[in-house]
């Protein structure tokens, strides 16, 4: 069965993981680079034959260490996305979206109690392309390449700016599974 088997009705649920380089920029220090791993959960629904709107929830599997914070920063992103399938039957698509990003760190008190604190928040964009490949039983494999930009801004802890004006951009390759 080929991608032409897409019913393009109803909705999809997808999960996936990916990896790619991430470049961070700051107002108070030099930029830094690292390789990050991301996971996503996607909910989508067909609006027309070639258009799908969705919500993507994304998190990093290896949170980012920033000097000035007591623990690694853990970005969590919620995106509203639109995907366009140029072919009425093929699985190729392009996708874009925007949404909210929060950066969290864990803090530990003197008694050992841990708490997760949001130290920054801002906007995020995504643009990418991918291909839905049918593997059977309403399951699809989706390799994709995405560019992401996010601007969490200042990381504030204890009322003080610990990291100034953080923004980051990344390109990652993901492999996901969709169920329709």
């Amino acid at each position, binding site marked *: 069965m080929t991608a032409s088997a897409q019913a393009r009705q109803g909705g999809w649920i997808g999960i996936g993981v990916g990896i790619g380089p991430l470049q961070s920029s700051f107002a108070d220090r030099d930029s830094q680079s690292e390789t990050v791993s991301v996971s996503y959960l996607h909910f989508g629904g067909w609006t027309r034959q070639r258009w799908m709107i969705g919500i993507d929830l994304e998190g990093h599997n290896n949170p980012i260490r920033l000097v000035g914070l*007591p623990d690694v920063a853990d970005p969590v992103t919620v995106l509203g996305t639109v995907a366009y399938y140029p072919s009425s039957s093929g699985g190729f698509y392009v996708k874009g979206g925007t949404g909210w990003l929060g950066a969290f760190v864990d*803090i530990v008190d*003197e008694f050992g109690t841990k708490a997760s604190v949001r130290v920054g928040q801002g906007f995020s964009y995504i643009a990418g392309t991918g291909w839905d490949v049918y593997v059977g039983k309403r399951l699809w494999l989706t390799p994709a390449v995405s560019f992401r930009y996010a601007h969490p801004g200042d990381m*504030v802890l204890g009322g003080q700016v610990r990291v100034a004006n953080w923004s980051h951009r990344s390109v990652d390759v993901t492999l996901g599974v969709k169920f329709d």
Partner: protein
Amino acid sequence: MLRQTVGSRLLAVALCAASATTCDNSSDPIFPSAPTSLTSGIAVYDGTNFSGTSAYIDRDAEDLTEYHGPCDESEDTMRSWDDCISSIRVAAGVTAVIFADTGFKGFAVTIDRDVADLGLIVGPCHRGSMNNCVSSIRVRLP
């Protein structure tokens, strides 16, 4: 309906009796205002720099939602001291442990000197601080 314990009512009565201030006649527990000169216990304020409404506390307070205060979380709950403290005075020799949750649970910070702005103390609430974040307090007298 708010849960109110007999213990907290007795505590409020004792606090009122021990202070020189006038206590509210309502049935809800209430802390007396902070004295001008703090010789024991702690004084908490809803504003930074020891400003705004104050309260004097000289023993453990397990649930600040039970004490009438200047803050309200919603229209359905009474105004209380829960998530309402922005600065704290501590009498000499006294130690207070402030908790982010009721029942002496959650993220906690030990205070052994005056703190004019809890917004500068690392915690789990707004801007990663303890400002407007305290829900229970342990008071250790010398």
